[in-house]
């Protein structure tokens, strides 16, 4: 073996300064490229209705196809049971009792707005957000300082009459004052003269449009909070064209109204599950639940499942498009939901104080750039874990204020003693302590749910491993365990209420 000669040493010495200079000038050549992040959120998609997670109806063949190249989280829960807390927790990494976006159309605590996914992600990223759900828009409009592109909610729509988007410098106030007040849906519009004109124009256009949309037997899919009608094929095609055109690296948050009601499946999926002999397990009514007759609940479930199958079909086309453009090799693709949907115990939809699994058990699939193998994670995770996970995956520090932890296999490791929560508190002022609240606490296989208000106050305890359908309340049969978990839950609730009158 020969040593380094004097001549070699001199040659290396001459090259070294040039190499150092080059490393400063062209960092991209020496560092691995930052991965893109694409987050597709299906509103109101319950994991309990997805064949991906074992549901008997074949609702999600394309999500199952995607799962073959992704990490599938089997025990993932939303921190809230409707859009506002669910979305806010996902985007902030905070529980609803911390960020306080707990009401219908609610907003985050103003002092916490820098605590968000887009702020956490380095400014080297192009930060993009799109939501068809007005309430999600309200929340990410609070982060507009940290967003480079906000697409209007009626992008890719077949028809829309959204007014607030015309005032981009004052988005939240404009949406709230116009679309959610002067021209609101579900209550009479606060504008007497223009309100009537707006309604008549909307109905006339919509009637004309519906006549042409004969591939949607129940009418075009529509958003409930904004006058937007859309076609699933246009929506997913729009995303397939928009995402590859974003400046890289990017983080794109896409909040789709589907599969939120109104459930309007495509003709190819409508009545697909009619007479399929599927009958879900009968469950007793809950004192805080609805009183809908079983047949109505079954009919709504069938439509919901068909709408999921429709959305899944077009998601498959988006997946193919992303594959063809090569984005899947350079991006994390995340599929999740903001909350679930309920079709049991006489209860429909998700506007309820209940926190049973169909309402909070949501899908989570994450495909890493170029991933080819399926990975399954069964430990409990929560929507607040996405922010720290994405911070780590994009090369940013995990903020110390984040209440979640990096997801197992993506920077984190399973913790059997970990405690996570889902919170429903829409009947409270976000500026005061929570008095009428439902809290579900997950620890190991157990789920303890606390329902409290001035009218009721009780706990329910289930072992989700042995009783995933939550039929056997263990609160009386396991008093010692129940007491320990109750104390722990009440301690957390007390901490959350500290500082509020």
């Amino acid at each position, binding site marked *: 073996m020969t040593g380094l000669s004097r001549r070699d040493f001199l040659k290396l010495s001459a090259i070294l300064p040039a190499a150092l200079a080059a490393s400063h000038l062209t960092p991209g050549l020496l560092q691995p490229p930052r991965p893109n992040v694409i987050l597709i959120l299906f509103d109101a998609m319950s994991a309990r209705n997805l064949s991906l997670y074992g549901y008997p109806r074949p609702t999600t063949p394309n999500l199952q196809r995607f799962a073959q190249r992704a990490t599938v989280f089997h025990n993932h829960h939303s921190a809230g049971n409707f859009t506002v807390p669910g979305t806010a927790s996902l985007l902030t990494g905070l529980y609803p009792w911390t960020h*306080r*976006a*707990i*009401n*219908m*159309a*609610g*907003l985050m605590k*103003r002092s916490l707005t820098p605590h968000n996914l887009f702020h956490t992600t380095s400014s080297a990223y192009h930060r993009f957000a799109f939501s068809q759900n007005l309430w999600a828009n309200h929340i990410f409009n609070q982060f507009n300082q940290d967003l480079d592109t906000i697409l209007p909610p009626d992008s890719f729509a077949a028809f829309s009459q959204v007014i607030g988007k015309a*005032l981009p*410098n*004052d988005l939240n*106030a*404009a949406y*709230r*004052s*116009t679309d959610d*007040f*002067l021209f609101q*849906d*579900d*209550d*009479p*519009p*606060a*504008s*007497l*003269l*223009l*309100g*009537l004109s707006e*309604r*008549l124009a*909307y*109905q006339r256009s*919509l*009637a004309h449009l519906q006549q042409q949309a004969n591939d949607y037997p129940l009418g075009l899919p*529509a958003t409930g909070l904004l*006058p937007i009608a859309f076609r699933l094929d246009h929506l997913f095609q729009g995303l397939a064209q928009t995402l590859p055109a974003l400046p890289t690296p990017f983080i794109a948050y896409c909040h789709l109204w589907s599969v939120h009601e109104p459930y309007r499946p495509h003709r190819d999926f409508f009545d697909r599950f009619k007479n399929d002999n599927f009958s879900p397990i009968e469950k007793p009514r809950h004192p805080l639940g609805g009183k809908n007759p079983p047949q109505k609940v079954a009919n709504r479930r069938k439509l919901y499942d068909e709408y999921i199958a429709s959305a899944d079909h077009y998601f498959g086309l988006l997946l193919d498009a992303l594959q063809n453009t090569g984005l899947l090799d350079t991006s994390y693709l995340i599929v999740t939901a903001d909350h679930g949907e309920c079709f049991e115990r006489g209860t429909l939809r998700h506007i309820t104080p209940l926190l049973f699994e169909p309402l909070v058990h949501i899908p989570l699939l994450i495909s890493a750039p170029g991933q080819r193998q399926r990975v399954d994670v069964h430990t409990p995770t929560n929507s607040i874990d996405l922010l720290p996970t994405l911070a780590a995956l994009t090369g940013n520090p995990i903020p110390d204020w984040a209440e979640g932890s990096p997801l197992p296999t993506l920077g984190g490791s399973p913790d059997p003693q970990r405690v996570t929560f889902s919170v429903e508190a829409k009947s*409270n*002022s*976000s*500026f005061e302590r929570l008095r009428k609240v439902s809290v579900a606490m997950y620890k190991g296989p157990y789920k303890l749910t606390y329902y409290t208000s001035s009218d009721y106050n009780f706990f329910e305890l289930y072992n989700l491993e042995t009783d995933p359908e939550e039929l056997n309340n263990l609160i009386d049969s396991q008093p010692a365990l129940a007491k320990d978990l109750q104390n722990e839950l009440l301690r957390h609730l007390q901490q959350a209420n500290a500082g509020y009158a």
Partner: protein
Amino acid sequence: MSIKSRFPKLPQILAVYAVGAIFIYTWTMLWFFWKLPSWLFYLNLGEIFTSLAYALTVNLFESVLAVLLPILLAFVLPRKWFLETFTARGATLLASLLTYTAYVLYRFPVKEEPPLHLMTTRTPQVLIATALLVFLAGRLPFLRKLIESLADRAIVLLYLFIPASLISALVVLIRNIL
């Protein structure tokens, strides 16, 4: 006869405008107070007043739009039919039509449920009734004086509505420019 003489005088227009404004502003304020308890749950006072500012700005525009209808009728109809009794007939016309509008909106709060059926069946009846009321408002001296007197008194509310709306319009303008 000059074009100007075909138009009602400013005090008459103001009286009719005030009647229309009462309906338009009151309707908005009703729904504002309907929303207020839920807004107080998650909006601070500044955010609530901002929504009110947007609403009052739109109200100003709507009320101006509303008063154009009786002015137009005064212009195109024979003087005796409308112009000579502009305050009574214009105020009656606006009150009747705006009440009907409020009824339609109240009955059909959901956008996808069309009030078209109701409007096609009821609107001819309402228009006939309105025409009759407008006729009587100018024809019966007692009714005419009563309506004129009420409309004149309604003008006092414009001292509240118009400045509030102008300040609101300024707020909306500033928020969207800055």
